[in-house]
């Protein structure tokens, strides 16, 4: 049964949107940290996307994506009232949410959406939540308003200084860690950002959870495409994760594995863009 799109909010025109889907069975079971696998067309590939929010009482889940290739471009071409061919989930292990006092949630780019769901879980558990979010420039910043609704502290960074602090999220993170009393750090965003966050927290000895986004095919443990090295052991992100101890993750390996199909992905996307009547 295709999954209807109830609402679409264009967050960064042409690049990133928020879709609210009518998926009552998934909404009933989804917890922060879970993801779904989607397929947009009968010829399409299955792609994983983190669930950014849920409303079980209304049977709704929210996803947020960054247009990176053909599959996400197909998703961006859909409007409210359209349906997504396949939505499968919830998948992965939910975030371990415990009362630890102060939790710093760091989000970068589209990862802020997923981080927001985890931060919400920590807030509900009674933790003091500090959100540190970053983007290249002001227009690319997501979920600021939503986070303001429940976090205790919010720090915004932009690379170009067009909004909030100029610079990377790691700077305010370090300052906040130096201030002390931090029980856990959660980071969701691009691989280099998560790797940098793990390096900043390491000397402080603060538990650091990262949410990984390796290539997946089935998302249910069958293929092993999503294997990541954590503490020298191979883990499957789809059944053992997607969240892992950031101090143990082999980030360079993850980055290389994410690039495994780069040529084919580029070929697919170029072809799709040429087929579009107005270009893209």
């Amino acid at each position, binding site marked *: 049964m295709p999954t209807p799109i109830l609402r679409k909010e264009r967050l960064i025109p042409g690049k990133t949107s928020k879709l609210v889907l009518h998926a009552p069975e998934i909404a009933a079971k989804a917890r922060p940290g879970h993801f779904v696998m989607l397929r947009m067309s009968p010829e399409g*590939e299955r792609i994983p996307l983190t669930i950014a929010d849920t409303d079980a009482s209304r049977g709704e889940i929210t996803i947020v994506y960054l247009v990176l290739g053909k599959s996400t471009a197909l998703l961006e071409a859909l409007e409210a009232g359209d349906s997504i061919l396949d939505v*499968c989930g919830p998948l992965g292990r939910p975030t371990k949410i415990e009362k630890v006092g102060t939790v710093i949630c760091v989000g970068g780019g589209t990862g802020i959406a997923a981080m927001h769901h985890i931060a919400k879980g920590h807030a509900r558990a009674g933790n003091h939540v500090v959100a540190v979010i970053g983007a290249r420039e002001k227009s690319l910043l997501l979920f600021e308003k939503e986070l303001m609704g429940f976090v205790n502290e919010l720090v915004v960074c932009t690379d170009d200084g067009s909004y909030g602090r100029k610079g990377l999220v790691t700077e305010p993170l370090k300052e906040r860690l130096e201030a002390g009393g931090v029980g856990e750090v959660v980071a969701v965003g691009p691989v280099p950002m998560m790797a940098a966050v793990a390096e900043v927290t390491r000397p402080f000895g603060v538990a650091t959870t990262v949410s990984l986004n390796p290539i997946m095919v*089935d998302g249910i443990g069958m293929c092993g495409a999503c294997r990541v090295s954590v503490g020298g052991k191979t883990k499957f992100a789809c059944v053992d994760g997607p969240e892992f101890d950031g101090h143990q993750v082999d980030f360079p390996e993850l980055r290389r594995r994410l690039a495994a199909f780069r040529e084919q992905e580029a070929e697919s996307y170029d072809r799709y863009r040429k087929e579009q009547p107005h270009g893209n």
Partner: protein
Amino acid sequence: MATEASAKKVAPRVEMPCQPPAERRHNFKEVALGYNGDMAATEASRCLQCKRPTCVRGCPVEVPIRDFIREVAAGNVERAYEIIRTANSLPAVCGRVCPQENQCEGKCILKAKGEAIAIGRLERFVADTHLAACAAAPDSCPSETSETQAKGRVACIGSGPASLTCAGICAAAGLEVDVYEALHESGGVLVYGIPAFRLPKDVVAAEIAGLRELGVRFHLNHVGGRTVDVADLRKDHDAVFIGVGAGLPIFLGVPGENLVGVFSANEYLTRINLGRGYDFPEHDTPPFPGRHVTVFGAGNVAMDAARTALRMGAESVHIVYRRTRAEMPARAEEIEHAAEEGVEFALLSAPLRFNGDEQLRLTSVTLQKMELGEPDASGRRRPVPVEGAVEDLETDLAIVALGTRSNPILLDATPDLARTERGYIEADPETGETSIPNVFAGGDIVTGAATVILAMGAGRKAAQEIVRRLGGK
């Protein structure tokens, strides 16, 4: 019965036409082309019609083999189909992928006199003829009607051979059946695992369509243990059958295994079969291009992966196996087909490590040469390393086909389900019932990785018990 065999002279078995190796190694069309009506009738007439047929004892689902072959010999193919369907919901599949030589044909009395009757090929002929007739005139193929009085609802988790068989028998007995499949297509391993050149996808789709006509409802994108769990399903179903397969791939555990270019057979085959990667970029799931391909393992899955890699354009494909060809677990026919197509065998070799470049892309595999030593617990001679005999094999795509272990998703979500020491579901060998009343299990999630037909046999046993409990015959 030996007298029955010796009473007649045994004619040679009718060969089945195949695509020539040089041609088929470049396409995904079916390798074995099937009998025509004359071939089938000739082959069927070789059957001795034993009074006490031994072949049936070799069949995990107990197809009335003698009876259907009699009808084929007489030209009554549709009647033959009806006879097969009393025991087997997926005859077109089984006719293609069952290890017949070890099962029905292995028990055939003619085997002693030369060649067993080609039961698998005849089963395939009957099923294909039926499916072709249905495709040509859908109205002339009414769905079967219930003969029993069973009433109730059954949920099957997974849609591979075990669940499909269970669903088919329950539905034919009048039960309402819901099948929950995690992927976007039904069929399980028949769809994601077995390549089209061995089992065309339209054959699987046609047999599944037959189950839909019986009233079976398929719920795709429903992960057992995530979207739906056993506790939920028990609330609105009288019985639950778990047929989720084994799933989780086993890796070699040697250094370099996470280099770009090292794949599990599951991933490699899923990209190409379920994702139609052979049709990239018309389909979006990219296959991984490999010039020099190395496959680890020697079962049917390894053969499938190796032959698929050839068809994807590899210049060389090696199967690396630590024993000899005689010990390979794959079906003889699959090994022969692979060799004919150009797959090479690096026998008595075991991987030591994968080597890569600075981009972490696979460039070669270091192999340890082995020799056969003393017999081990399995009775087979144990391969032991030949000291100092190490060599590098150039490879940019490695496929690990060493089998699978139990997938944790459903098991973790169902803590009260008793498991074996090896982590599979504990089920009554006679009925398939688990430690939870009216919850049954069968197939790879009970036995560990096995064959399609053994999974079907388990699905059938559970279905018969479910039907009996719900008031049927």
